[in-house]
């Protein structure tokens, strides 16, 4: 054994107590769906974990009706204080069942257990804890005194951070006093259904949260349902565009968190050891299946060769394999379809003239795998520099001046996130000012916190999740002139409007 070889250290799945098949969670109960069931598989082995139901239009109708009843009869009448207590309970139950949820997440999604255990699930608990505290403080949300909830929220979430995306959606919605119908992604419904059990343990009133599983058609029915007041979607820009189009002319309030093609800008005075780690984390975290992944590395020309050499050295030490092994750095790609997309785009990269490199690594024979990959000699016109790959693939470009770095970084229809690496604070802040991106990380990357708003500019969507803007997204001000609107507390600084102008040009399709 060399120092890089580790004995297998698989996390046991013995603590899971899964059912063979799952129904829908409507009105506080698991119920049978009218649609066909489908298998959810482990992307690392392609073995079936459980059968998941497809919610039909009637099932979605029943879920929305349950959410409406719960809104009218219970949840909107409950004090903020009591809503908060339910959310605190949920946060604690998630903490108590954290390991179980982490194992289920890695099994179903393919992400390394060290990520689900140390990042996804702790973030879920933190999200509920943070928004629990907001439930009785809505006067401070930035909308003036006595803001009101919207009603029933339809929430559709992606497969890359299944339970975490659920928390980002459900926690603020409930804190603000809305009820929810949530549709998890088709390939990763499992932890949402375990979460439904947690809701039962928390004794959350029936119908406050309803979970309908299924594919795109179920989601489409849900967001277009006439009795829904709020739509929150995280996923691809193509679907986000479709939702915005189909909801035009309705009064539904919308939050869209869509694709990205983030620039990670490395200046020649960057702390190079940290930068290498940050670049690796930025693009290989969660196999690169992250909407804000630092997929375009912009390196100052005079350190380009050194950075690329250091990156190759570092990538050679990444361990690719069993998601449930505690030493795994890079797990499985979530689905065959996603693997096909990554394979197709990387082939295009080679065909267009970029230079491809991967470390030698043995990939398992079953499951969906893709070796960490770096492309050099990438031109701004290449598809791998423009399209969201959503996989463990880094495109390296170079620049000479800060102005050139900014121009290249902004040369994308997306605007979700960006990274800056430099030891010079004044430069970091000046560059951050000029980047058209909703989140800018300086000398770090992929940092998330419930207190910190997250969301994109341009075609990365609109609205923010996290922080006060994430709460305000589920509220409306008290009607003008009503006594309720009189300031009850000292005015807090206003939250900027979160709806950014957007282009409607359908430039391309992209996975989130």
């Amino acid at each position: 054994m060399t120092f890089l070889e580790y004995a297998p250290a698989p996390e046991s799945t013995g603590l899971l107590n899964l059912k063979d098949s799952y129904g829908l969670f409507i009105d506080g109960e698991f119920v049978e769906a009218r649609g066909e069931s489908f298998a959810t598989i482990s992307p690392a082995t392609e073995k079936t974990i459980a059968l998941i139901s497809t919610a039909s239009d009637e099932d979605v109708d029943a879920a929305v009706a349950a959410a409406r009843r719960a809104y009218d009869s219970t949840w909107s009448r409950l004090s903020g204080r009591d809503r908060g207590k339910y959310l605190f309970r949920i946060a604690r139950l998630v903490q108590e069942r954290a390991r179980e949820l982490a194992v289920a997440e890695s099994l179903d999604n393919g992400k390394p257990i060290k990520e689900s255990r140390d990042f996804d699930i702790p973030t879920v608990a933190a999200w509920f804890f943070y928004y629990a505290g907001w439930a009785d403080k809505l006067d401070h949300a930035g909308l003036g005194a006595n803001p009101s909830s919207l009603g029933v929220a339809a929430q559709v979430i992606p497969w890359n951070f299944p339970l975490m995306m659920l928390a980002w959606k459900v926690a603020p919605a409930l804190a603000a006093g809305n009820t929810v119908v949530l549709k998890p992604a088709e390939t990763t419904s499992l932890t949402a259904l375990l979460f439904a059990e947690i809701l039962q343990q928390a004794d959350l009133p029936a119908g406050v949260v309803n979970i309908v599983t299924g594919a795109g058609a179920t989601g489409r029915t849900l967001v277009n349902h006439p009795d829904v007041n709020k739509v929150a979607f995280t996923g691809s820009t193509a679907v986000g565009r479709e939702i915005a189009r189909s909801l035009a002319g309705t009064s539904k309030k919308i939050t869209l968190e869509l694709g990205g093609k983030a620039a990670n800008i490395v200046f020649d005075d960057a702390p190079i050891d940290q930068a290498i780690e940050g670049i690796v984390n930025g693009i290989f975290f969660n196999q690169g299946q992250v909407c804000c992944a630092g997929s375009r590395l912009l390196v100052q020309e005079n350190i380009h060769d050194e950075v690329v050499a250091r990156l190759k050295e570092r990538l050679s030490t990444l361990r690719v394999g069993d998601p449930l092994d505690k030493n795994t750095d890079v797990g499985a790609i979530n689905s065959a379809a996603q693997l096909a997309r990554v394979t197709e785009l990387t082939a295009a990269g080679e065909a267009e003239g970029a230079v491809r490199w991967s470390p030698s690594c043995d990939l398992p024979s079953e499951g969906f795998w893709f070796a960490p990959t770096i492309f050099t000699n990438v031109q701004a016109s290449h598809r791998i520099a423009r399209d969201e790959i959503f996989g463990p693939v880094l495109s390296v470009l170079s620049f000479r001046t800060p102005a050139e770095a900014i121009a290249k970084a902004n040369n994308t229809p997306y605007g979700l996130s960006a990274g800056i690496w430099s030891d010079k604070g004044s430069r970091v802040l000046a560059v951050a000012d000029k980047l058209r991106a909703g989140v800018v990380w300086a000398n770090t990357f992929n940092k998330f916190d419930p207190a910190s708003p997250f969301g994109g500019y341009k075609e990365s969507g609109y609205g923010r999740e996290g922080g006060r803007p994430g709460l305000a997204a589920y509220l409306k001000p008290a009607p003008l002139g009503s006594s309720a609107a009189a300031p009850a507390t000292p005015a807090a600084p206003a939250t900027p409007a979160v709806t950014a102008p957007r282009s409607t040009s359908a430039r391309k399709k992209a996975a989130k």
Partner: protein
Amino acid sequence: MSHLAVQKTYKLYIGGAFPRSESGYTTEVLSASGTFLANAAKASRKDARDAVVAARSAVSKWSGATAYNRGQVLYRIAEVLEGRRAQFVAEIVASENVSAAAAGTQVDEAIDRWVWYAGWCDKYTQVSGNANPVAGPYFNISVPEPTGVVAVVAPQDSSLLGFVSALAPALVSGNTVVILASERFPLSAISFAEVLATSDVPGGVVNILTGSARDVAPWLASHADVNALDLVGANALDWISLEIAAADTLKRVLPPESGSDAAAPALARIQAFTETKTVWHTKSLI
């Protein structure tokens, strides 16, 4: 067979321990009808000074904890308080001569207020701080920070609710506290110390003194290592003299409040014990 009760010795709470008063003095605590309930420790000047030392030594750990961590620790206090609800109800009934229902309402409200304040830990900076649009190429942000050690004279007319209503807001931002319990109703405060001692609160973050506020408050008001003074329960004291004494080291002072809802929940009570720090950083020209 009846069980003969084992009665509790009510002591002070300083630095995470339960010492008797250094003075060796106690005061009798009587029920409303005049029957003996317990002997409470009568804190001395030396006890107050020990408490300030303990509070000061706990500032870096408590204020240095993440807001999320502080919020969870404070929430844990509410969980433990809820579990001891019956004990507090019984103690309040005996002390204040109120019905069990009224005592229960007081305990419930104390728990709910505590949860309300716990939730502010990772939010008050978002509401109280802000970016400042200065006219120049500068990053400029103002953030509230804890002031340090806060001395509190707790409301005198209630056992538990007034006590927690004065204590919780000072803790939210990361201050540590020396608090003088109600002179007439001190028992709930010491029982609350047992809640704190079993709730992951680092020793020294809260220090609780019982006895005569008239005797001890002046030493806290004039103590040079105390940063702020909450006189919410000092109505019956010569509180103007206390405020004058506090002026020597320019302590931040909150005035006495009267009525049953003294120290009502307010963001202002959190902000009163914070300092606003503004940071400028240049932005280069590109």
